[in-house]
Structures are given as structure tokens and as C-alpha cells.
């Protein structure tokens, strides 16, 4: 067997590979089979919608050019009859559903920009239970957080030139992110992060479709946690920004 063609092909080649796949690949799949995988629509939450609408408020024209206008909910007049009240509430719910669907679409695009630009090669997306990471970044990562479409393939990351981003959402304003993507050193002195002027039409207050989508995606990270937004408790951790 040890030097025969069939031994090498079937035992070493296929056999050992399949054994490793079953024990290291299929086993976790089976273990987590009852954790349903969420779609992008299902992971959109109120916090994200608020930050998403904030993009429109800050930059109405670039936002409209990229994604169209987000409808605003109708106010319920005080003198409305219960019937009218019901109607307006239903219409508002339908509007809200449209906004959420839009946010999901933008999240997908934002994740693709995040991947295509290689962000995940310098920023991880998991907080380890060691080395004081939970004090710096926030709660330790849990499996449920990754069971969604936007983690296909999972964005754990392998290197941190910059900090972990899995609890980044809501920590900083949309403005901050826009300026940071346009030219990181403007808000983060000495940062070796490249600038991304192609996500803008010439100025940091004119993000284009990809730029807006990337900001949306980054603001989504960690928005599902009760601790959102997580601010570092320690003065010295927070640094100057």
C-alpha cells in the first residue's frame, strides 16, 4: 500500500483529504445547521436605517444620484379618524419596508467594495477573548454574528495593520468616515491607510455610490449588538479621536 499507485491515490490522496474535510469542515457545518443563515434584508436593523438616512440628510444630492430618494414617513394628523390613522400607519410601514430593502441592497454593494478594495487584508472582523481585545474593541465575537449572507465567505481577516472593525459601526459619524476614506491622515495622523479618492467625486462631501455603500457597510458592523455603539471605556484607549 505504502508505495503502490492505488495506495497513494486512494488512501493518501482521496482518503486522508476526505477524512480531514469530514472532521474539520463538515463537522462544524453540521453543528451549526440549526443556526439559520440570515439574508441581507434580515440583518438590516433600526440603527442601520437611522445611519443610512443620515447619509441622505448630509449629502442629499450625491445620495439621490446614487440610490434615489428615501421616502419620509407621513405624520399622523391629530384630528385623524381611527380609519385614517390605520391607513397612514400601513402606508408608513410599506415605506419603511422599501427603505429597508434599499439599505439591504446598499449593504451588499458595500460589502463588495470592502472586499474588492482589500480592506479585509488590514482589518479583521473578530474580537478574541484574549489580549485585552474585548476592552479595546467590544464584546467577544460569537458564532451567531457570522450566520448571514454578508459573511460569505466569512471576513475574519488575518492581519491587523488597522484596528478590528467588527464593532466599528456607530462609533464615528458618517462625516468622519467620508473624510477618512478620502484621506485618512486628515482625521488620523500618521495612519498608513491608503486614500480612496475614487470613492468620491473630487471632494469628501461628494461620495459616489461605492463610497456611500462602503460607509453604510462599515456603520452596519456591530449594529446588531446591544452595546452599540460601543465606546472604549478607557481614556487612553480612545486616543485623540
Amino acid at each position, binding site marked *: 500500500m505504502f*508505495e503502490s499507485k492505488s495506495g497513494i491515490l486512494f488512501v*493518501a*490522496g482521496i482518503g486522508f483529504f476526505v477524512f480531514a474535510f469530514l472532521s474539520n469542515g463538515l463537522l462544524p457545518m453540521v453543528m451549526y445547521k440549526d443556526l439559520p443563515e440570515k439574508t441581507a434584508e434580515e440583518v438590516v436593523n433600526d440603527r442601520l436605517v437611522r445611519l443610512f438616512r443620515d447619509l441622505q440628510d448630509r449629502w442629499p444630492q450625491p445620495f439621490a444620484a446614487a440610490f434615489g430618494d428615501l421616502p419620509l414617513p407621513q405624520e399622523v394628523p391629530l384630528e385623524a379618524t381611527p380609519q385614517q390613522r390605520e391607513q397612514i400607519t400601513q402606508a408608513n410601514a410599506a415605506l419603511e419596508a422599501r427603505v429597508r430593502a434599499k439599505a439591504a441592497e446598499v449593504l451588499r*454593494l458595500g460589502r463588495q467594495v470592502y472586499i474588492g478594495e482589500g480592506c479585509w487584508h488590514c482589518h479583521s472582523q473578530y474580537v*478574541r477573548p484574549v*489580549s485585552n481585545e474585548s*476592552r479595546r474593541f467590544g464584546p467577544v465575537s460569537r458564532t451567531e454574528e457570522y450566520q448571514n449572507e454578508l459573511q460569505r*465567505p466569512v471576513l475574519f481577516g488575518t492581519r491587523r495593520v488597522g484596528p478590528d472593525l467588527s464593532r466599528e459601526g456607530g462609533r464615528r459619524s458618517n462625516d468622519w468616515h467620508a473624510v477618512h476614506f478620502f484621506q485618512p491622515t486628515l482625521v488620523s*495622523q500618521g495612519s498608513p491607510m491608503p486614500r480612496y479618492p475614487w470613492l468620491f467625486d473630487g471632494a469628501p462631501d461628494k461620495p459616489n455610490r461605492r463610497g456611500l455603500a462602503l460607509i453604510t457597510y462599515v456603520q452596519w458592523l456591530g449594529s446588531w449588538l446591544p452595546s452599540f455603539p460601543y465606546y472604549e471605556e478607557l481614556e*487612553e484607549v480612545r486616543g485623540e479621536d
Partner: protein
Amino acid sequence: MNTSKQDGPLSVPHAALVDEWLVRWYFYVALAYLVLSMLGGLLMAFQLLLANPLDGIEWFSPGRWRMVHTNAVAYGFLANAFLGALHWAVPRLTLHPVGSRALSYFIFGAWQLIVLATAGGLIFGPSLQDQPWVMHLAQRWRLPMSLGAQALEWGETPFWIDPLALVGLVLVGWNFMVPIARSPAPLYVTLWYFMAMFVWTPLTVAMGNLLPEYVVAGTSAGAIGGLFIHDLVGLFVTPLGWGLMYYFVPIMLKKPIWSHGLSLVGFWGLAFFYPLQGIHHFLYTPIPMFLQYGAVVSTIAVELVVATVVINFFGTLWGRGRTFFDNLPIRWFYTGMVYYFITCFQCALQVTLTFQKLIHFSDWVVGHAHLVMFGVFSMWLFGVMTYLFPRLLHRPWYSQRLCEWHFWLSAAGVFIMFLDLALAGMFQGYYWASLQPWQASVDGSQGFWQVRAVAGLMMFGGVLCMIYNLLMTVRGVPAQPEGSIPSVAALGSG
């Protein structure tokens, strides 16, 4: 065992076995991709020093070129150089030509298209990502992936290339399995490694590129991603590298491998333990802890196996130590083996949870990766090329001195880079754990990054020496009258 691995006359004429044009061209394009990849690496190195000359230009974005860097090395340089070496070694070892010469040429062309399309996709894909027609197609076909990279290290190849690469790998396997199947058993060690690799590589590529993208998300996809990253090194690059060592070292030392038993231990140990380790890339993630422990244990186990292989090769060198100085390819090979032992020893340490606390996510890992990919496998391939080019071109090297420069710049450069980044990684780990502001870890790394850039330039300079030397050799410029450097003069003119 086969006698053909002796350098003597073959019972089948060499011309009927080896297509020298193909071997040469595989090596040429491999070197071209190596230059491309190293330029990407230098771009990233200068970006970290805040001295990127191409700052703010979309098509030279360091983020995108970071992926071109790793993919061009794996699929452009290593794969092409290995294919060239396989086209030399397998027919000469089995005394049968490859399955189909036409198929060989087809694979050569198709593989270059795949590599170029990957580079093109990585560089231009993200720019097209938000075009309405792209978004429409993605929605219509429910494609979850981006037009550019896929988010898996070394699996960044755009999604539409994956199936083509897979078909290519199966064809490669068939083409070389034909001569192996025709040669009588028992097979020589080299062919064990090659045969297993022809099975492992397509399986690995299919697993890594298809499952985390189409079948499963989240933590379990992370486990599969870890298997993929690791298997690509362990089940694609490593068996090819060791297979070539088992082939070329006895030829050059003119004596058989020291211990057949240790060869067996080495192969079967690697085959069993290597595929079990992938999850060690993601320790302390939400992947179940018992699987993480398993990966750690099997990683340490494979380092013991590696020790037996290295001992076997140094046993072979025993009594012929002088060749380390007198024969340049042997020096490439054995320097690579020393580096291999160092990386593997490093691996046995860094894979433990204790080390992981400190060095995970840091430059330590980057140094490790460079020592493996450049210090070991690229250096072995440089040795193979140094040995084969005089035979492929039927003339001696243009400059023996440049051959030596290539070796010393590469060997010194990569080792400096390794030491520097290992140290940088420990500093970064302590900066992070001490809860200083993030910027402290970046500022503290600058000195290390400067040394790294210099080391990278040394490695690049070495490769440029080789390419210039090769260019002059190909053009038939008469060899430099520089006295005889025995290590290169020993190679003769084929």
C-alpha cells in the same frame, strides 16, 4: 527504483521525452509574474512607510495589489515554475512523455489566461462593481460575490475563473498521470508526492472556492477557509517542492537518498497530518474549541514529520558537504531546507494558543509566510532554474558572478525580512495588549517596516540579477571572463 534519475544516458532519447521549449517558456512567464508580484509587494511596503509613489491612483491601489501580490506568486510564479519543472522531471523519471503534447500547449496558454484574468479581475473588477448592469446581473442571478476579489485569502480569484482553473488542474493531473500510470510500480518517492498532489490540488481548490461562497456562511465557512489556505501550501506547493527535491538532489550529489524508510515516514506523515491543520489559522474564533485543539496538535505532529524529512536530506548530504559550496543548485536547495526547518519549528511554536495571544494578526505571520513561500519554495525553484537553464539553452550562464549575487541577495534578503517581521510582530502584539492608542503600534512598526522594505528590495534585486543574466544568456552574449566560480562552472553548458 528507476535508474533514470542518474544523470547518465536515458534508454529513451531525451528529445522524445521533454519538450524543452515548453519548460523554458514556463520558466520565462513564471519569472515575469514574479516581477509583477514583487512590484505589488514593494508598493505595499512603501504604502506602510507613507511613501507610496502611486498614491491615490485607483488602478495602483495597494489594497488591490496586495491581492495581486499573493495570487501572482501562487498561481503565476509557483504554479508556472512547478509546471515547467514537472515537464522536465516526470517524463525523464518515468521514461514516458506526457499524456498529450497538444494538451500541454493548451494548458500553458489557458493557464496564462487564467492568471492574467485573475490579475485583471482583482484590479479592474472593483471599479465596475457599482455599474448598473453589474448590479442588475448580480441581483438577477443572485450572485452574492463581488466582481473583483472573493474574500478568501489565495481564493480571491474572481468567481467566474474558479471553474476554469478547476478544469485546468484536472487536465494537468491527467496529462502527468498518463506517464506515471505507464511506468511500472513501485514508484520513486518523487512520484508519490506528485501523484497525491494531482488529487489534492483540484479537491482543495474546489473546496475552498466553492463551499464558502455558495454552500455555507459564517463560522463553519471560516473553518473551510482555513483548510483551503493551509492545504494550498501543504497539499499543492509542498508536495511539488519536496517531489522536486527528491528528484534533483540525488542527481546532483550522484548518490541515492539516505533512508528509504524516512522517505516513507515523511510522505505518509505529511499526507495524514497536513490536511488536518487548517483551523489553526483561526484560533480564538467562534469555531468550536475542540477543533482548534485538534488543529494545534496535528500541526505540532507534522513538524516532527518534517524533521524526519530534513534529517533524511542532510543524511544524503553527509560526506558530500563540499558540494554545498561547490554546486550552486545544491546550495539553493539546502539553504531552502534550513529555512524550511526554521519555518516549521517556528510554526510548532506559533500555533500554540499561548503564542497566538501575542502574535496573531501581527507582522510575525507575514514574516513566516515570506520565509515559506520565498525562502523555501521560490529558492528551490531558483535552484532548479539555475541547474536547468544551461541545459535548456545549451550554453553556460552569461555571468557566474550574477548567479552568486542572485543567491546571496535572495538568501540574505528573505532572512532579514523574516527576523525583522518576527520581531515587529512581537512588538505589535505587546502594543495592542497594553491598550495603548492604536497609532502607537503603527508608529512603533515604522522602523521594522523600513528594514522590511530594504530586505524586499534586496530580494527584488536578486531576481533582477537573475533576469538580466538570463536575458544575456538567451541572447547568446559570450560568457563573462571573470575567472571561474566553481559553484556555477560545475553546471557546464548542458
